[in-house]
């Protein structure tokens, strides 16, 4: 591949790579961090990366918002001039799910803290083994 080919590849795909990096940061936080709150934050970063990825799929070059004017009624709307509304709908609901999971996760973390006086995973495991 020529240099121009590589530059075109980067320009066409770099936003996906940014989301992949974000997703990996979130996943790594969920796997490697010992603190439950950090794990929850990692989960949120992962969800945000996926939301950004979907929203980025929806874009079309030179297209406008998926809100039509009333003068568009009865006309034929060229779908290349309006961005794809479907990923936006899906992500609207995904944001709500992320809030719901965050709320329940924080409630569980709070319960665990009340019971074991710590949010560090290894200390919790040690206390579970003791009892």
């Amino acid at each position, binding site marked *: 591949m020529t240099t121009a080919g590589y530059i075109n590849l980067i320009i066409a*795909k770099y936003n996906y*790579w940014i989301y992949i990096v974000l997703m990996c940061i979130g996943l790594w936080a969920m796997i490697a961090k010992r603190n439950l709150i950090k794990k929850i934050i990692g989960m949120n970063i992962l969800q945000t990366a996926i939301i950004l990825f979907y929203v980025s799929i929806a874009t*079309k070059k030179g297209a406008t918002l998926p809100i039509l004017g009333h003068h568009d009624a009865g006309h034929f709307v060229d779908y290349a001039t*309006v961005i794809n509304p479907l990923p936006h709908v899906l992500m*609207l609901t995904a944001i709500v799910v992320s*809030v719901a999971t965050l709320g329940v996760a924080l409630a569980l973390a*709070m319960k665990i803290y009340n019971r074991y006086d710590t949010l560090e995973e290894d200390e919790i495991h040690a206390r579970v083994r003791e009892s």
Partner: protein
Amino acid sequence: MKRLGLLAVILFGALLVYGTTDFPDWGDPSSPAATHLSPYYIQHSLHDTAVPNIVTAVLADYRGYDTMFETAVIFTAGLACLFLLRVFITPKETEASGLYRHRATGITLRIGQGGRLPLGTREFERIDSQWVPYDLIIRTACSLVLPFIQLFALYVVAHGHHSPGGGFQGGVIFGAALILFAISHNLRTTLKAMPEKRTNILTGTGVLIYVGTGVLCLLLGGQFLDYAALAGLLGVDPVMARSHGILIVEIGVAIAVMAVMVSLYYNLASAGHMDEGL
């Protein structure tokens, strides 16, 4: 374990980056995501539902089931949080105990178990044990801003047909306004304005409005969540009935989301005790 995790994550990321080489270019109007289903929505939603905002039309009409169960998901999350955290043991003696501040001098009294101040004293105010700072500027500024935030939330819900917005966004803004009130004042003041019982009832009411609209369509001879069946009831033609049906459903979503946000905040901030918190 950490090394292994890092290795797995890097491998995962490398595979995903390799996968993007087959992806359509960013902003390509002929990408698979933009060519199969979405052209139908873009070309027909205004004709089908008379809603200019395609996202709202798809959310509440074409994908009405999805949104209905989404509302059920947040309802369940609010319920789960309530069951996990809420503590119902509140002995009556502790009602008067706590920290009280003399308004004029700022001196703080601690009233122990069994002790009580004379009822109806205006010189003392109850304060939280951990969050004591009293800031007149923050309190006044938040009180000034709050009505406008709430008005904007109602606008976002009501104008979701014509501009970015809808039930989820408006509900979250309204919930955020109440949470701002709780942060700038304190939890007890907020609980007086918006009791816990009311948030719990509103959570159910929001879902009930959504599901009830669906069942009403069923009773009027349409299919579940087919708002065109409401045409006779609302006195408009079937296309406008879809538009109005979407608004009714969005109001239900907004009520449910607002109530769940506030309920989550109450439970998390006070660890389920509903007496004091952040």
